[in-house]
């Protein structure tokens, strides 16, 4: 429990504040619009009717958690910064929630609490309840603060990633939409060269390769070359191994389906700047630049690095540029709290969407949350914290501003996206927010968008 005497400063002032926040009765006095059946319970302060109140209780608790989280965020960075207050609120939050139990909101709040705790203590790292890096060799790579997944065993991350893939369309949506746009752009080409900003395990390309070998029109045996950008040695090792391993895997896969394929690497500078001159280009090949920023388990990529890739892409005048990024909702004045709330909303939609599709798979979802989403939440908040005060601009807008021309998303592409979502749950929506952009959303919350430009 909190030792009030030990807290410095005029703790009388905020003791009342905290008491009011922690008091169970606090929320009942607020005017919250609920359904008519439950409105009676609100007027009777403190007591809650037993019958059919569970969802009301959950809502109330969820609301209280949100209030506490926002209060903590405010205390951390607001105008009246107060780290002690923040600490106290986080303590209270930790009493209320655990990442392994409870409703979506409760588990989510647990991860956000952890993340805020990390910010408070300045580590910016992950405070996962379960796994701590026991060894520095074997599958546990050196713990790098910017690589959230490295704390977990690589097979766990992969397993969780596979689960996420199967339980939601997020990853596939981005990949498939981009791939379809690419296929259409290179339909008549014999040689195709794709430069991938962050290839990771190369999962995106499996389906593209398959599509290339089975295309009916156009030159029958296209030659595909993929150049993956690799980061210099010394920086975080990819949890799943190097870009070389990905290359080997892709080569094997291409061979297995009979596609002529070659794999290249292009080193980025030490500061991860992309230099177009480092690419090996061949005359007559169709050049495609690909930039996926939405994978839940990807590492931090500095905006400058991404920008260098996009700038470089412009100079190369590629056939196509595909880019997938997460959607950012309205963030108010752009301050930390606004973005914090947006992030809360974003991940809450994530959790909801997974639960809606798989209500019975609590354990599987728990694993995905623990291994992928939880660390990602920490990572997101760290980014937001780092970037507070700066202007946030979606890359799609950035591209348009720098002279990239939109390329229309085709009917077939849109159709594919709709079909894909149809497999999952009808809470997912796809819409064309612009002629060249498809947005995947959950209920009313846009989640990520795919931009196609040239």
């Amino acid at each position, binding site marked *: 429990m909190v030792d009030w005497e030990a807290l410095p400063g005029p703790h009388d002032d905020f003791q009342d504040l905290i008491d009011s926040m922690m008091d169970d009765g606090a929320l009942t006095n607020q005017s919250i619009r609920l359904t008519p059946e439950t409105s009676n319970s609100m007027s009777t302060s403190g007591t809650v009717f037993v019958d059919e109140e569970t969802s009301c209780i959950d809502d109330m608790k969820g609301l209280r958690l949100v209030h506490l989280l926002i209060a903590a965020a405010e205390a951390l960075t607001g105008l009246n910064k107060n780290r002690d207050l923040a600490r106290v609120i986080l303590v209270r939050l930790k009493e209320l929630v655990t990442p392994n139990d409870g409703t979506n909101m409760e588990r989510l709040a647990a991860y956000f609490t952890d993340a805020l705790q990390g910010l408070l203590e300045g580590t910016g790292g992950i405070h996962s309840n*379960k*796994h701590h890096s*026991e*060894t520095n060799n*074997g*599958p546990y790579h050196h713990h790098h603060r910017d690589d959230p997944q490295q704390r*977990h*065993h*690589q*097979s*766990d991350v*992969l*397993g969780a*990633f*596979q*689960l996420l*893939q*199967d*339980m939601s369309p997020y990853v*596939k949506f981005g*990949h*498939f939409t981009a*791939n379809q746009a690419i296929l259409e752009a290179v339909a008549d080409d014999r040689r195709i060269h794709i430069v991938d900003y962050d290839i990771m*395990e*190369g*999962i995106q390309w*499996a*389906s593209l*390769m*398959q*599509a290339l070998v*089975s295309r009916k029109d156009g030159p029958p045996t296209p030659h595909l070359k993929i150049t993956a950008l690799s980061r210099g040695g010394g920086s975080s090792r990819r949890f*799943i191994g190097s870009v070389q391993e990905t290359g080997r*895997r892709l080569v*094997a*896969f291409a061979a297995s*389906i009979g596609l002529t394929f070659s794999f290249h690497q292009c080193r980025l500078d030490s500061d991860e700047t992309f230099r177009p001159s480092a690419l090996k280009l061949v005359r007559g090949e169709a050049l495609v630049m690909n930039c996926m920023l939405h994978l839940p388990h990807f590492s931090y990529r500095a905006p400058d690095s991404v920008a260098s890739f996009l700038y470089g892409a412009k100079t190369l005048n590629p056939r196509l540029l595909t880019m997938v990024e997460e959607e950012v909702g309205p963030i108010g004045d752009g301050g930390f709290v606004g973005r914090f709330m947006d992030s809360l909303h974003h991940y809450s939609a994530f959790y909801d969407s997974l639960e809606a*599709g*798989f*209500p*019975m*798979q*609590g*354990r*599987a979802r728990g*694993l995905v949350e*623990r*291994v992928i989403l939880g660390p990602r939440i920490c990572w997101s908040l760290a980014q937001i914290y780092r970037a507070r005060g700066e202007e946030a601009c979606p890359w799609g807008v950035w591209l348009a501003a720098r002279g990239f021309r939109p390329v229309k998303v085709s*009917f*077939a592409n849109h*159709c*594919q996206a*709709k*079909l*894909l979502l*149809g*497999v*999952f*749950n*009808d809470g997912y929506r796809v819409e064309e927010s612009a002629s060249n952009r498809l947005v995947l959303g959950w209920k009313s919350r846009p989640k990520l968008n795919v931009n196609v430009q040239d």
Partner: protein
Amino acid sequence: MPSALMQAHDREPPCFQRESSHLLITTDPKPRLRWTLELHERFVDAVTLLGGPDKATPKAIMRIMGVKGLTLYHLKSHLQKFRLGKQPQNYLNEQAIRDATDHLKNLQDAATARIFSDGLDKNMHRNEVLRTQMQAQRTLDEQLKVKHHLQKRIDAQRKYIQTILEKAYRTVSAENRLFDDQPVVSEMGSMKERFSASNFPPIYDLQTYGDHSHDGFLPTDDSMSSCTIPMISYDDMQLQQLGTLAPCLASEEELHQMTYN
């Protein structure tokens, strides 16, 4: 009776006609009833029951006859004629001819009216319809193509991910043997241990996700919205190798009951 009824239905005041489930609106202000012999005989019976044409009232006749669609209007005029002593046969013939002529005229009027109202639009309308149909057909074809391709692409991606997973799990088990004193804490691995003792069948197929369409991956109908592309389709071979992932999922007893959309 039925034939009389049908005709009766053709000429029903005030303006609505019912023909089976259709609702027709006629503009004929004086719908004629075709008094067949049968109908007339029923009429006469009813009148006789009521004590003769002078005593019988149209309302009473209607009630006794119980013919659907027969209205007071019909009966009033018929009764009047009856009272004036018209012979049924003659009357019928005359009436029949008159009715037929009227009917024909009605048809002609209606046809003309239709032509004038649609007029030029009729052709245009038909082209429009054709165009829309062709477009719909093309759209449908394209959607089918997309569906077909999508399935292949999803499978390709899954196959690829599985090769990664396989390798990863092989690495895990290798490491477990290597670092005996420091057991590698793999959550997936530990999940396997926890659940291998359970009774859950190792065969993990589409049903665990509640997908009951096991044959092929596409629904047999053409509805685009219910595309039950299955998500995990491990075959037995891969199951042995993967081990950890499948039981982890299959371990949830709820799996057997759940339906994913």
